[in-house]
């Protein structure tokens, strides 16, 4: 028996590998969270970090469905929004001191978001998860439209155009946090983000989490190992909706307002992009995607009017050329750098980066020139003192030459790679 146990351990990952792959990343993450307040962050940084925290939890919740469960949802903001709305109502009941709610701490509102999101997902999932694939995707789209437009009609529940607003500085305090200043909200965000990440990672390690992957890969076979794939999908959908609702609760406390927009297709699409750009095949992918896209959406608008265009381009390029997302790129580069053929890899990588930077330069010149021309205010793109108008020959040289050169470089690297394989 002891012999079996011995060799059984050899079959699974070693405890060293487990520490490196599971415990260490979360410790590093916690260290970063503890370090951020020490830098005495500005309000802007706090705002950004809080939005990142909300999006990390939301994107991870979404990936329980898409990455691990193989269910493509176009309406996951519904559960985020319903969780958030419920939290705002409770926040107002706390302020009024209504009944049992008078003693409910605002700090624990995300728990209620979790329950509300989970409950609504359980109800909607009871019919939407009967089929996987396209049917599921279409139902999710329909339900999202239905609930978002319904939200505009039921004013007492959803507050109409203005939405529902509240005040988080009521009710009993927990951990000595008044929930007023940004720095208090920071710890609230940190707490719920870490709890959610750990809980959602743990979920992937449970029998249901494993069955979710099995159902994604092969629902037919799941039936023949004694499980009902519909039941698996429904349970996973409910769990995913619950964590989306938790993120909604975090958002409710952070912004103290929710409008019906939050249930609409726009945030539903954004969470899909965050998860996909980050990399849906990795657990950390959506975390990376949430951090990058939150940063881009709040910071890039300061640099350029056309940031949505860049975002869209990035999404398309990732879908086409890097389907495993940013996480896939990061791990791929890491493998290459630690792999046996380091020299060749680094050489190729540098050429690839050069090619991409060149193409990007050409693209930026094209986009920035066009958007100014299209605005019609007579503005001209003037980087580094260059005057790049539509009639300037230099402009067109700066568009065509870098794009052409970059494309040529990338093609050459790809050809070399293929030849090396063959």
């Amino acid at each position, binding site marked *: 028996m002891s012999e079996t146990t011995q060799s059984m351990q050899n079959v699974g990952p070693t405890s060293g590998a487990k520490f490196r792959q599971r415990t260490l990343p979360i410790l590093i993450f916690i260290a970063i969270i503890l370090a951020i307040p020490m830098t005495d962050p500005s309000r802007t940084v706090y705002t950004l970090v809080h939005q990142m925290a909300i999006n990390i939890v939301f994107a991870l919740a979404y990936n329980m469905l898409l990455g691990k469960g193989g269910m493509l949802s176009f309406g996951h903001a519904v559960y985020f929004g319903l969780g958030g709305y419920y939290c705002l109502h409770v926040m107002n009941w706390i302020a009024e001191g209504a009944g049992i709610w008078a003693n409910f701490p605002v700090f624990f509102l995300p728990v209620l978001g979790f329950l509300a999101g989970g409950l609504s997902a359980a109800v909607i999932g009871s019919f939407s998860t009967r089929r996987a694939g396209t049917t599921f995707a279409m139902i999710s789209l329909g339900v999202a439209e239905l609930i978002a437009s319904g939200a505009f009609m039921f004013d007492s529940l959803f507050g109409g155009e203005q939405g529902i607003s509240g005040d988080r500085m009521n009710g009993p305090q927990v951990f000595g946090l008044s929930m007023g200043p940004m720095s208090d909200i920071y710890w609230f965000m940190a707490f719920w983000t870490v709890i959610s990440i750990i809980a959602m990672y743990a979920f992937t390690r449970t*029998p249901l989490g494993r069955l979710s992957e099995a159902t994604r890969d092969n629902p037919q076979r799941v039936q023949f190992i*004694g499980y009902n794939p519909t039941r698996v999908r429904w349970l996973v959908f409910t769990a995913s909706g619950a964590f989306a609702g938790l993120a909604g609760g975090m958002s409710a406390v952070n912004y103290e307002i929710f409008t019906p927009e939050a249930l609409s297709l726009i945030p539903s699409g954004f969470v899909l992009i965050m998860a996909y750009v980050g990399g849906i095949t990795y657990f950390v992918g959506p975390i990376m995607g949430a951090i990058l896209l939150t940063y881009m959406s709040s910071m890039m608008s300061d640099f350029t009017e056309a940031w949505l265009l860049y975002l869209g381009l990035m999404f398309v390029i990732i879908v086409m050329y890097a389907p495993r997302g940013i996480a896939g790129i990061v791990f791929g580069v890491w493998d290459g750098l630690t792999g046996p053929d380091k020299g060749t890899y680094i050489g190729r990588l540098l050429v690839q980066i050069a090619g991409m930077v060149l193409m990007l330069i050409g693209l930026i010149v094209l986009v920035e020139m066009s958007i100014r021309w299209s605005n019609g205010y007579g503005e001209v793109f003037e980087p580094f003192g260059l005057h790049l108008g539509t009639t300037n020959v230099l402009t067109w040289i700066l568009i065509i030459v870098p794009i052409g050169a970059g494309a040529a470089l990338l093609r050459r690297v790809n050809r070399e790679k293929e030849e090396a394989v063959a």
Partner: protein
Amino acid sequence: MTAPALSLKNLCKSFGPAKIINDVTLDIAKGERHAIIGPNGAGKSTLFNLISGLYTPTSGTVSLNGTLISGVPPFEINRMGLSRSFQVSNIFANMTVRENVRCGVLHSMGQGYAFWKSVTASKAVQERTYEILEHCALVDKANLPAALLPYADQRALEIAITIAGGAEVILLDEPTAGMSHSETDRAVDLIRRSTEGKTLVIVEHDMGVIFDLADRISVLVYGEIIASAPPSQIRGDAKVREAYLGDEALPEETV
């Protein structure tokens, strides 16, 4: 007398006007190794799909150990002790070999749809998974993604998942299709060891495998069973020769 492990009564299945299975009646005793042979398109896979619950019969019944199972969903039939493999490898491609087998073990170890405990928490599950891996000679490939396995090993994994739940009635659909001679020999050995004391129903094209393994053979032609007898009688059956075996050489009887 105990009820047969599997009992098909007047089983029919039509897709529109096409009658694929036509009035099949067959009893398979507990512990029997039963082979089903027949030309392509005879309805062998349809028969498997009817027994395992993937299809509902147009008419007629299927019973497992005396309990009616026609119309019962596949996952419930599986829980009642019937497990099947597939003609094309039907595995969880993105998971490792070990995870594949572990998924097959979970339900029989009472893990249900649990989401409150780790999948590694149950020692019984880990031990059973290891036993199955060892049994199917997959231990050294345990951490490979299933999709990267060589073909013969994928077929072994297919069998591993099928037997992982400890079912008493095992249905194997062409387990050696596409294998080389040595691979076939290993597969037959695995099947023999895996179904010791269990009821086996096997669909196979390789006559060597059939005559080696089976206690009884049923010949299915155009959805009807034209003969059901021990291998020695099937070999001599004129009807079978005419309808199915034709000019195909039967393996010589070896002692």
